[in-house]
């Protein structure tokens, strides 16, 4: 249910604390390397657990989730692009860059959703973790293709080399490698060894997530200053697009994949979330004409807080309603 108590999950409270600290202009700062370390830890932790769960099930049964992830990964950025180009009516290069962010996913939002499910004691399927790993990259490719179409004619040799590199980068992105690699290790490592390393990832996981969200709260809050640059219509997009994504995700999770409430919520969150770590540098390289003030403010300053505070409990209610 959408109630106040959902917001009293420590992870979300720490996000709010970071947001507030920055609002009152506190000098609280996280060393950037600490944030990187925390996100490495979280990705490895998600991966290992996901891998262990997946090892228990028939690989064939995962095909549906894989196909759905690819569908969402290629489809969502196109929907976002059409909305941006047709309705919000911003230029096509910025539209392509923003679309790539919304087609991809945010591991931070995903883990917050897991913390949420934990707190309401609802179990979830293990497939969404693979979907998380798969959905990181396709949107980057789509963003690139859309930008090349928008630029058409200017695609000289240099442009082609850059595109080739970006496709490589999209699939060898650090988060993708960490997630898939840890998943594989979780699936194939011998149990004795795993049981020695799991306490590290179990005992600390939710605590580390709190510190990560504390810092992300500060980062999100720092973006508020750029709201003017973004403009009202685009800010509305930052709320509406996750709702559209969530609706598609809910449908995919519930009807297409037949997941329970937990799994359906996670698919909704994947579809609703926008990347704010892996995609920004990729888009900066691929579409230098696009403004980071736009795509970062939207994904980190609008959609991330919206999903964490309002979205997750909302999508959860919807998933419960579907599962009635």
């Amino acid at each position, binding site marked *: 249910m959408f109630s106040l108590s959902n917001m009293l999950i420590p992870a979300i409270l720490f996000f709010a604390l970071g947001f507030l600290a920055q609002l009152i202009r506190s000098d609280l700062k996280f060393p*950037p390397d600490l*944030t*990187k370390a925390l*996100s490495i830890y979280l990705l490895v932790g998600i991966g290992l657990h996901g891998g262990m769960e997946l090892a228990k099930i028939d690989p064939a049964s995962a095909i549906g989730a894989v196909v759905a992830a690819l569908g969402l990964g290629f489809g969502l950025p196109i929907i976002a692009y059409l909305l941006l180009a047709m309705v919000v009516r911003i230029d096509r290069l910025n539209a392509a860059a923003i679309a790539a962010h919304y087609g991809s996913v945010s591991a931070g939002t995903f883990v917050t959703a897991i913390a949420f499910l934990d707190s309401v004691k609802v179990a979830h399927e293990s497939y969404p973790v693979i979907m998380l790993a798969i959905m990181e990259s396709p949107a980057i490719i789509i963003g690139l293709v859309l930008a090349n179409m928008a630029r058409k004619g200017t695609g000289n040799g*240099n442009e082609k080399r850059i595109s080739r590199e970006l496709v490589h980068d999209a699939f060898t992105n650090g988060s993708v490698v960490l997630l898939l690699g840890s998943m594989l290790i979780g699936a194939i490592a011998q149990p004795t060894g795993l049981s020695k390393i799991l306490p590290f990832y179990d005992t600390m996981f939710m605590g580390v997530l709190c510190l990560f969200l504390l*810092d992300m709260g500060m*980062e999100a809050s720092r973006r508020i200053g750029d709201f003017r640059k973004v403009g009202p219509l685009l800010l509305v997009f930052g709320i509406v697009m996750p709702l559209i994504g969530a609706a598609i995700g809910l449908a995919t999770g519930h009807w297409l994949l037949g997941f329970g409430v937990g799994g359906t919520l996670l698919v909704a969150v994947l579809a609703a979330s926008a990347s*704010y*770590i892996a995609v*920004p*540098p990729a888009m*900066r*390289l691929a579409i*230098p004409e696009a*403004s*980071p*003030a736009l795509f*970062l403010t939207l994904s980190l300053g609008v959609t991330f807080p919206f999903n964490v505070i309002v979205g997750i409990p909302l999508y959860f209610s919807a998933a419960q309603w579907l599962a009635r």
Partner: protein
Amino acid sequence: MKPVKRIEIVIEEIELENVIRELDFIGVVGYTIVPRAGGRGERGVRYESVQGLGNVLLTIACDEAQANRVIEAMRPILRRYGGVCLVSDAMWVIHDS
């Protein structure tokens, strides 16, 4: 001591690899990299963050001919991605003279 050109380049971290490839191509053998820089310019504020959107400061000491080639190679990159490239004069302390 011999007179050299001192080129100072500020670019985004993510472009570093490309710029170094250009320098290799030109045959520049020496440069110094100061990572994790921040700054402000036409493209807004930049600072080191988990998104890796910070700046990098590249200093190159080389002779004038090479400097000109570096400058020409940097122009399209600066046009595309922004950044700054300053050139000044310096004396290089040669150790064996």
